[in-house]
């Protein structure tokens, strides 16, 4: 059981969601974050003030999956998020100690497996 964290461009978030859906990965949390990778800085000008925008808007996906779904999840995020330009984001996979489905009290594999029907 792993937690897959994908940090992607906001304008690709919809493509990632579509790719995850096609890969039959369900159960996703997303949040808006700001971050800085290696991308070129954006220069903006407001009247006489010129600023370099070091932080870019990103969308962070968190997906808890059973081990057999780690590969398909990573592939789906890459497929949806890749533009080939610097700034496409990163994927981190971390060990997940425990998962609980609040409604039923199911734990671990049962908790991260989508409900049938």
């Amino acid at each position, binding site marked *: 059981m792993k937690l897959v964290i994908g940090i992607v*461009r906001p*304008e*690709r978030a*919809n493509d990632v969601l579509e790719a995850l859906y096609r890969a039959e990965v369900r159960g996703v949390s997303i949040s808006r974050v*700001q971050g*800085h990778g290696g991308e070129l*800085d*954006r*220069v*903006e*000008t*407001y*009247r*006489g*003030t*010129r*600023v*370099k*925008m*070091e*932080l870019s808007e990103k969308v962070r996906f968190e997906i808890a999956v059973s081990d057999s779904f780690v590969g398909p999840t990573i592939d789906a995020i890459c497929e949806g998020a890749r*533009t080939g*330009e610097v700034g496409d984001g990163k994927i981190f996979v971390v060990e997940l100690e425990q998962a609980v489905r609040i409604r039923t009290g199911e734990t671990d594999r049962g908790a991260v497996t989508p409900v049938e029907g």
Partner: protein
Amino acid sequence: MTPGSVSAGDTAWMLVATALVLMMTPALGLFYSGLVRAKNTLNTFMMSIGALGVVTVSWAVVGYSIAFDRGGGLIGGLHYAFLHGVTFAPRAGTHIPQLLFMAFEATFCIVTAALVSGAVVERMRFAPLLVFMVAWSILVYAVLAHWVWGGGWLASHGTLDFAGGVPVEMASGFSAFAAATVVGARKDYGRQALLPHNAVYVLLGAGLLWFGWFGFNGGSGYGTGHPSVLAFVNTLLTPACTLVVWFVLDLVRDRKVTAIGAATAIVVGCVGITPAAGYISPTWAMGLGVIAALPSYAAIMWRPRTRLDETLDVLAAHGLAGLTGILCVGLVAQRAWSGRASGLLYGDAHQFAWQAIAALAGPAYAFAATFVILKLIGLVMPLRATPHEEALGMDVVQHGEEAYTSAEGAILISSEFDVARPVRP
């Protein structure tokens, strides 16, 4: 009032009306920018601000002359180019100085050019848009204004267009149709939900447009006489009726009255009454408000199911409602109210025929001319942003600014003042 004299009362009202109509352009910018995604807010608003700049100049240089100088049936002459001879002497047929008449008509041309931008928001580059608005204001707006107001062929056959059904509403609507066709759909159109980002802007913009429209229609009698009073009051009645009908249509369709629907209804009602404002009775104005809602509502529901990304529905809201209004003049105008002709229901089939001819010729010319202008501009510069730029948003790409910047992570490069920089040891 003797012909050839200037009236203080007329002039006072027309000064105010001119300012009211000028306000409609930033109001339209607000309306449009609320309807797009957050990353395109500034670019969309700037399309209207752009018209305030370039179209005012093109109007003063040559547009006014083409529209309002005597000349042929198709276009006016060039005697008023660079405002030559446009002075304090009254404009023929009015009791206001021609200088003021020119400024009042300028505000119409500005807002109409800005209206067309609604078809191409979120993807068209800013520089070619400015070039387009200059060309369009001269080759489309000024020509159509000459046809109905400057002594052109429609005017001389008796077509009645009080405040701009042909040059403003149908011209912008059908030009928007052509512009959307040439520029093409947004890259995500039909794939993703592209939703309005701020409905409050849309409501406030619509409210300010309605307010400005009292100058637009109320000023189109060029004074304080009966046509102006009738037009002013009809500008209250018609949009109210459209609004109520829109509520009912929304309730029937989805059991909910929508805010963006209401804002749209206000615009549709104002558009509907525009050509008819000084010609039809208040009762018929209310009837027009009901009728005008139907084709526009149907088109707004249907258009997103097509491949035509005429993004902000200028064709439905302006083109179709303007068409309804101009035909309505031909049906229900009454000499007792208009002081001019009567419509078909009051015994004058000839009037209806010339309203119908205007409703065919105006849109046909606007569509064809806009199509050609944009194709020609497209030969010398790219009309649209790349898909990558479109994804980033037009605000950052075209203007280097954002509407909702957080300033977190912004590092100062230079400022107006020579701020002492911290010195590294």
